[in-house]
Structures are given as structure tokens and as C-alpha cells.
């Protein structure tokens, strides 16, 4: 405590060598109170001691710490008063007025409290007029417009020693009056001349205190705040972060913390999502039914054990974080409660530009028909009816026109019917949502044309289901359809299981069914023993596809488009049944169900699958992980009797070649050449001129002949 602490304020213009001046600088002053608050004041415990002569080293250090106590800085007048007081040789503590508790004060306050006892002792030893002077000290305050914002006390610029001036305190007539008589002190009391050095210091401080029109913060206050902050927080190596601290202090001044009663508008979406997710976690139903629910829930539910799958996938380094997985689990549970679901599985996550999709693969219970699908179909059929009607009208009009406009020979390719629900590509229903807690949306069934087009384009998903897919060739549908088509393709290509997990049911039909299409259903093998993990990793023959391959047509089971077309032709009237009707369309055959992965086609000398052990350090407890190279993001794991597939990625196929959009179709011929309409090239200029010349020659030749004949005739006549 004996060592004077370092000077907190940078005061380059002060003479720093004199200890007395240092001491005087460290005196805390204070005192003035803005007049309105004087009456409310209860003098707080903190006292500021005024150091008289240089000997009061202890006080000096204490007062230095009290520098942080609040109080507005002194105006010139106050400083003068204080100077008077001190030079008068009277030591009097001045109270800190109007010290509202401020954040930086605590340190100063505590220290000040310790000093208070010291001060009190001195007080008692002081002169009798002390209290009177104390009182007058209150009144000597000048109104300070900076008021409560200033956390720092003004500094007293007095020299306490060797001052040749007399005891100003005593001379000041104001001091002799009691507070009640005085009221406000007028500014222009008799003031003796201050020393030039003091004047310079006061000028400097006044300069630092000035504020500008654009900014209400003066440099003085800012430096006070900055140094207070540094001293309170005590960061390491403050010089290196000085600029940042400077910037943040300024920022904090102009952006005070919001009142706790007001809502932070930025955090609204966070809270909203949190509310929704909270709803996931709350059990539905009153507390009274708690027991019953427990029993029901312990029985089989359609919700899969997501946490277990997440754990295994985590071993492989794939998957979302565990709390996210749990939220997905709760969201799936919510879905199961809302819809009549027989089996449910977490299919995966598809990343999008603005939002991502969480996809759940679901199978409805038997007999639950999807009402949405029927509505859509009805609309389509209605549309078709209108088209045919319009065609007929158009044809009638044409007949009336004598000049028959040749009909275009182009016919749209036949629409391949989509597959039934619960079969082929539409075997499962898919629900999507953006984040767990948000409502699940059902995706429509996929049509073959959508799959065919989806193969030709490559577009990122935006995250909004109703966004249009702008591409060439134009995709028939919006993002929901495109998403569904990609899901279908990914499922067909990457859903695999260990060999033997699924087997074909005991069917009476052989493999020689129509066109060798093979079976399209499977069932779980109850005798599945599990394949050792090492074997699963070694050979791809131990894994099989359990989803049907999608043919080029866009379906899993082939449908001859021509048969349908012939039906349509019967309805149509004057359609040309020329060459097209009898085209031979080859039946498309794909690999049958449950084909091992070793049969998959290679991509550029690269196997389409990569298999690994999840942990090479402990093969006994590892899990076999298979990663698809064709669809990056598709993973499957198998361990013992358990296996699972998942897809987390952007939803696009990997192709080593660049994506080349298809070129536009070639220009169609206008008319076929027939005797009526034959296209000939126009004669060129030379040909025309040659023809003209030849004609003129012929003309002149015939004229000459006529003249000759006439001459002959004339001659004959003359004879």
C-alpha cells in the first residue's frame, strides 16, 4: 500500500517528475453533484480523502483507487474551490455525492470503505469548522451537465505544497454561510488568479472533455471507459489488443445492452424453433394417462431405433450429431402418431441451398389409401378429356377449308403409366421436413417420365418444395417431384443388405414369368445368421440390392408403350398409322432383385463400392461399412444381424465426365416431297441470263427467217 500505483490516466502535458504533483493528481476528487440529486443524497460510505501535504502517501494510494468512484469531473470553478480548501491546510474529506452504483465502482468502493475508517478518525481530529466546510462543499458544486454518465471523477489539479497563496478556503465568503442561506453559488465570486501551470492543465482537461455535434462522447470519457475496462478485465498483453479494445469500448458506449424487458428481434427464429422442438419432447396426453401410455409404447412401435443406427454410423464416421439424431427420432415418432404408418425408416438427409430436407421412408398400413393421389389423378384425366375435345373441334374446322394444311407428323411419345402404389418405384411413401419439429410433408408418387428426365438434368435443391426446376430438357414438375425422383434413383441404386438377410418368399410361380421379369417382393429370412464382418468387407458378393433396378423406361416393371398407343389410336380419327405404329420396342430387362453387388457396373475402372472396417484398431468389434462411389453420400453398415442404409448428401450422382446438357432436337422437316409440293432450287443469276440470251437468240433467229421469207415472197411477187 505504500507504493503509489501507476498513474491511470495518460497526461502527457503534466510534469511527472514531481511526486507532489503525482500525489495531487491521484487525489480523488469528486464532489460535485448535479443539483437535483443533492437532496436525495445519502452520503455513501466511500469517502474521498484530500491529501494535504505530500506526506500522506497512504492516502494517496487509497485515493488513487478511489479514482474510479463516480462523480462528474470538476469544472474549473470546483477545482479552484478544491484547491482553496487544500491550500488552506485543512483537510476535509469530501463526500462522494450521487454515487449511483456503477459497474466499475466496486473495486473503488471497497477500498474506499476501508479508508472510511481512517478518514473518520481524521475527521474527529479535524477542526470544528470541518462540518461546516463539508456542508458548504455540497453547495459549491456547479451544475454539471455531464451528469451521471461520467463514471470517472474529475481530477484535482492542485499542488498541495509550497503554495504561496493564502488560505483561500477561509477567504471564500461562501463558506461562512450555512447551506440554507446560500442556495446556488453564483459563478463569479471573487476568484484569485490561478497559477499558469494549473491553467494549462485545466485547459488541457477541458479540451479533452469537449464533445462535438456528431458525437456526445468526449475523448476523456472514452479513455476513462477504456482504461477502466482494461483494469477490470486484466487481459494478457493488452498492448497488442489495444486497438480492438478501443473499438469495442466505443461500440459498447453507443450500443447499450437492451433492456431485459424487450425482446431481441434477432433471436426470434431461434426461440421459435426451440418452441417447436420442445413440443416434440413433451408427451402428448395428460399426466393421468401416463401409465397406460407407457405400456402401449413399450410394445412394438413403427418408429425405428434411430439412436442405434446413429451409433453404428458414427463408428463409420457418417451421420449427424447425436442430439440431432435424437431430435429426428422424436420427429419420426410424431409422424407415426399423426399418420397411419406400418413401417417407418429414416432415409437420410438431402442438403439444399437454403434449407435441407430430412427424408423419412414410410409404408402405410394395409388398406390406407392415399387420398391425395386420387385427386391428382382425377385432375389429370379431366385435362386429357378437354384435350381430345379440342382436337375434334379443330379437325371439323379444318375439313371446311378447301386447302388442307398438311398435318404435322410428330406425335408426342406415349405416356408411360406410373407404377402402382406399393410396387416398384412407388413401393414406399416419403415424407420430408426441413428441421425436426417442423411439420412433415408428403411427397407425391413418382412417374416414369420424371425419372427419365431427372437422369438428364443435374440441379441443386433449394430447400423449398414448390420451387420450379428450370432446366433443359424441361422437368415435368417442381422441386417436390424432382426430389422424389432423386430419392427413387438413390434408393434403387444404393439400398443394400447382407446376403441372406432377405430371401424370396415361397412362391408358386417360377422364374419363367412374363418376360423373365423376376420377382419383385422379398421377405426377411428368419434363419439369417449374420455374416462375419471381415467377409462382408472382403467381397462385394456378400451384399445384395434389395430394391428393384429402375429400367431405362423409368419403371421397375416393363410396360410396352405401344400397346397403350394402339388403344389411343382407335380413339383418334385421321391419325396416320404409318410406320410408327408397328415399331418393335424391345423389352427392357434389368438385373433381378437381390443381385449381389459384385455384378454392378464399374465406373471408369473403379469399383462402385468401397468397403471398410469401421475401426482397424479393433477389428473384433468393428462394423462393416460400405460406401457408394456412384452416389457419394450413400452408406450402409452391417454388423451381426443388423444392417442399415442411409444417405446424406446433395442428391446427385457421381460422374467422372463433365455434365453435358442434351442438345436441342434437330430442326424438323417441313413437308415431305410429293408431286404436289416439290422443292426445287431457284435458278441462279447466270442461269437466268444464259436462258435470256438463248431466248433472244432464238427470237432474232426466227425474225430473220421471217424476213427471209418475206423477201422471198416479195421477190416472187415482183416477178
Amino acid at each position, binding site marked *: 500500500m505504500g507504493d503509489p500505483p501507476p498513474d491511470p490516466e495518460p497526461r502527457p502535458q503534466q510534469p511527472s517528475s514531481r511526486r507532489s504533483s503525482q500525489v495531487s493528481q491521484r487525489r480523488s476528487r469528486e464532489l460535485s453533484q448535479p443539483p437535483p440529486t443533492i437532496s436525495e443524497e445519502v452520503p455513501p460510505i466511500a469517502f474521498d480523502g484530500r491529501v494535504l501535504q505530500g506526506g500522506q502517501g497512504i492516502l494517496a494510494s487509497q485515493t488513487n483507487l478511489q479514482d474510479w468512484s463516480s462523480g462528474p469531473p470538476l469544472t474549473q470553478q470546483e477545482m479552484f474551490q478544491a484547491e482553496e480548501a487544500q491550500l488552506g491546510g485543512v483537510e476535509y474529506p469530501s463526500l462522494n455525492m450521487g454515487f449511483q452504483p456503477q459497474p466499475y465502482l466496486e473495486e473503488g468502493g471497497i477500498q474506499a470503505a476501508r479508508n472510511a475508517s481512517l478518514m473518520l478518525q481524521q475527521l474527529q481530529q479535524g477542526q470544528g469548522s470541518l462540518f461546516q466546510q463539508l456542508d458548504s462543499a455540497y453547495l459549491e458544486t456547479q451544475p454539471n451537465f455531464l451528469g451521471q454518465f461520467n463514471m470517472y471523477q474529475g481530477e484535482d489539479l492542485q499542488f498541495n505544497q509550497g503554495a504561496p497563496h493564502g488560505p483561500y478556503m477561509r477567504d471564500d465568503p461562501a463558506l461562512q454561510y450555512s447551506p440554507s442561506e446560500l442556495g446556488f453559488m453564483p459563478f463569479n465570486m471573487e476568484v484569485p488568479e490561478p497559477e499558469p501551470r494549473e491553467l494549462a492543465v485545466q485547459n488541457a482537461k477541458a479540451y479533452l472533455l469537449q464533445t462535438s455535434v456528431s458525437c456526445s462522447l468526449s475523448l476523456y470519457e472514452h479513455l476513462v471507459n477504456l482504461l477502466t475496462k482494461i483494469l477490470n478485465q486484466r487481459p494478457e498483453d493488452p498492448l497488442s489488443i489495444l*486497438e480492438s479494445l478501443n473499438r469495442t469500448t466505443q461500440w459498447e458506449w453507443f450500443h447499450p445492452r437492451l433492456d431485459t424487458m424487450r425482446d431481441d428481434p434477432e433471436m426470434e427464429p431461434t426461440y421459435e424453433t426451440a418452441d417447436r422442438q420442445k413440443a416434440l419432447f413433451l408427451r402428448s396426453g395428460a399426466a393421468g394417462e401416463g401409465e397406460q401410455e407407457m405400456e402401449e409404447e413399450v410394445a412394438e412401435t413403427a418408429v425405428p431405433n434411430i439412436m442405434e443406427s446413429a451409433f453404428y454410423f458414427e463408428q463409420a464416421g457418417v451421420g449427424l*450429431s447425436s442430439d440431432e439424431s435424437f431430435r429426428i427420432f422424436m420427429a419420426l415418432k410424431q409422424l407415426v402418431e399423426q399418420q397411419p404408418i406400418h413401417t417407418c425408416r429414416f432415409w437420410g438427409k438431402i442438403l*439444399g441451398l437454403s434449407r435441407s430436407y430430412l427424408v423419412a421412408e414410410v409404408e402405410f398400413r394395409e388398406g390406407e389409401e392415399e387420398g391425395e393421389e386420387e385427386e391428382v389423378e382425377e385432375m389429370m384425366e379431366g385435362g386429357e378429356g378437354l384435350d381430345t375435345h379440342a382436337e375434334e373441334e379443330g379437325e371439323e374446322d379444318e375439313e371446311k377449308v378447301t386447302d388442307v394444311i398438311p398435318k404435322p407428323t410428330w406425335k408426342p411419345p406415349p405416356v408411360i403409366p406410373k407404377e402402382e402404389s406399393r410396387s416398384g418405384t412407388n413401393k414406399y411413401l416419403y415424407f420430408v421436413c426441413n428441421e425436426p419439429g417442423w411439420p412433415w410433408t408428403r411427397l407425391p408418387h413418382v412417374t416414369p417420365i420424371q425419372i427419365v428426365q431427372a437422369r438428364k438434368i443435374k440441379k441443386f435443391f433449394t430447400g423449398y418444395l414448390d420451387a420450379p426446376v428450370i432446366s433443359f430438357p424441361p422437368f415435368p414438375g417442381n422441386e417436390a417431384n424432382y426430389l422424389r425422383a432423386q430419392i427413387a434413383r438413390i434408393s434403387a441404386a444404393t439400398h443394400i443388405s447382407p446376403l441372406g438377410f432377405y430371401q424370396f418368399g415361397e412362391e408358386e410361380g417360377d422364374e419363367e414369368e412374363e418376360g423373365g421379369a423376376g420377382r419383385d417382393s422379398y421377405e426377411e429370412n428368419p434363419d439369417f445368421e449374420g455374416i462375419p464382418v471381415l467377409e462382408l468387407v472382403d467381397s462385394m458378393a456378400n451384399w445384395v440390392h434389395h430394391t428393384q433396378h429402375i429400367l431405362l423406361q423409368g419403371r421397375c416393371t416393363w410396360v410396352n408403350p405401344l400397346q397403350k398407343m394402339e388403344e389411343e389410336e382407335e380413339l383418334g380419327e385421321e391419325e396416320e398409322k404409318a410406320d410408327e405404329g408397328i415399331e418393335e420396342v424391345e423389352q427392357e430387362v434389368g438385373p433381378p432383385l437381390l443381385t449381389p453387388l459384385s455384378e454392378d457396373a464399374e465406373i471408369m475402372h473403379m469399383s462402385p463400392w468401397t468397403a471398410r472396417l469401421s475401426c482397424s484398431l479393433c477389428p473384433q468389434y468393428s462394423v462393416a461399412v460400405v460406401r457408394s462411389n456412384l452416389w457419394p453420400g450413400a452408406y450402409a453398415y452391417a454388423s451381426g444381424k443388423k444392417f442399415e442404409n442411409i444417405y446424406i448428401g446433395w442428391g446427385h450422382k457421381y460422374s467422372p465426365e463433365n455434365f453435358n446438357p442434351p442438345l436441342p432436337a434437330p430442326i424438323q422437316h417441313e413437308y415431305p416431297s410429293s408431286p404436289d409440293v416439290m422443292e426445287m432450287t431457284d435458278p441462279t443469276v447466270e442461269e437466268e441470263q444464259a436462258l435470256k440470251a438463248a431466248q433472244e437468240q432464238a427470237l432474232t433467229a426466227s425474225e430473220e427467217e421471217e424476213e427471209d421469207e418475206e423477201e422471198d415472197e416479195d421477190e416472187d411477187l415482183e416477178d
Partner: protein
Amino acid sequence: MDAESLLLSLELASGSGQGLSPDRRASLLTSLTLVKRDYRYDRVLFWGRILGLVADYYIAQGLSEDQLAPRKTLYSLNCMEWSLLPPATEDMVLQTSVVKGRFMGDPSHEYEHTELQKMSEGEKVFEEEVVVQIKEETRLVSVIDQIDKAVAVIPRGALFKTPFGPIHVNRTFEGLSLSEAKKLSSYFHFREPVELKNKTLLEKADLDPSLDFMDSLEHDIPKGSWSIQMERGNALVVLRSLLWPGLTFFHAPRTKSCGSIYVGTGEKNIDLPFML
């Protein structure tokens, strides 16, 4: 991502679906501290993972005091033993630009590339097919360099430039505010600025030279090559690059945590303009 906050960073970056298995995480925590000690780096970053056909490469980078100085890159196949990679040069990048396809996973694997080279024998000049061998290590180096130059991201304010030149981590960085976090202009490329000098004087007047000394993501070509999303309500902002799919940058607004990780095949998405 910083090796010191590895676990939290992995947790936050897990939205992209690829992460690390527990055994790898444990090995990384140990081995990266050892790397820091052995090579005397100021900071060690776990850069990410490049998926190969046979094995995966785990990449780490070591930084010195000056954050923008060229970084040392290390790779490992098992997250335990790290080998230093040579720094990337222009020649390397040029040479490996012809190699396409996936990484094998074997650093000594050599890609064969046939090209026509002019050989001169005596007075005749003819072209001959020459088979050039390119090592996978070279390809790895150049791919990492390209990814860093193209898509390494840092939020504005996380680094600051001192008047003496070196770039330091800003210890008073408190995170971006929510409104700033949704804008691409608050994120910078973590590399030497290329476009900064092309800005007009008017634009430069608004910049703060100690904070805005790198290119922002806003003017990347093609426009829209970054996907910026808020996850977990507004508690996490995730930037994913569409040009190099697999690069994820995450930042929790109003907190200090930020980092990026690349988990992918190491191939550029050349089809990006078609896909947007």
C-alpha cells in the same frame, strides 16, 4: 478447425453428414498435440479428410504466428503418424490438372497420363506420345492448395492486421451478430487478397484496414456458389461450398466458435453452372 476445440467443432460441423469416427477423434486429439510440439507450430488445424478408394487421407495444417503465411500441410492415413507434404508450386498444379477421377488412397500410387510431346531428334521434329507419371502425393498437395485458395473461409473480425504486417488472431472477436452472419459479405477468403485492389476508392473508404484486408465471399464467381444456411434455429450458421462439395464452414453467431472442415472426394464440381 482448431485442434484445441476439435470435439466441439466436429459436433457443430456434423450437419453435412460426414465426420469422424470415435477412434479417429481420439487419435487426432493425441497426435495433433504431439505435432504441435514437434513442429513448433503456433496453431494446428485439422483440415479435413479426403476420401480415397482404398484409404482416406487425413490432413492437418500447422500455422505460425502470422496467420496468412504459407501453411505447412501434413497428411496421415491413420491419424497417428503424420508426414509433411511439400509446399505447392505452380508446376504441380499445372501438372495435376490433367488427372481426373478419385483419389486412390495410396500416396505412392502413380497416375499415368499420356500426352503428346514434341521431341526433336536431330533435325526432325515430331510428336510422340509420352506417358507421364504423376504421383498421388503431388496431386494431393495441389488439390489441398486449390481448395485452400478457393474456399477457405474466415469470418470478418476474427483476424486483424497489425501495422507491422503480420496478421494475428483477434482475441476480442466476439462473433458475428445474427444479421451479419446471414450475409456473405461478412466472410472472407482465408488467403492473400486478390480482388481487394480492384475496389474503387469509394468502397475502400468504407473499409477498415485492420479488419478488411481479405476478399469477401460476396463476389465469388459463379454467383451462388455458396450455400448459407441457419441450422438449429438461428444458433448456427453453416456455409457450404458448391464448388468443392464437402467443404463446410460453421460459426455460432455471437460466440467465438468457428471453423471449417473438408470431407469429400477432392474433386471440383465443374458442373456448378449447370446446377444452379
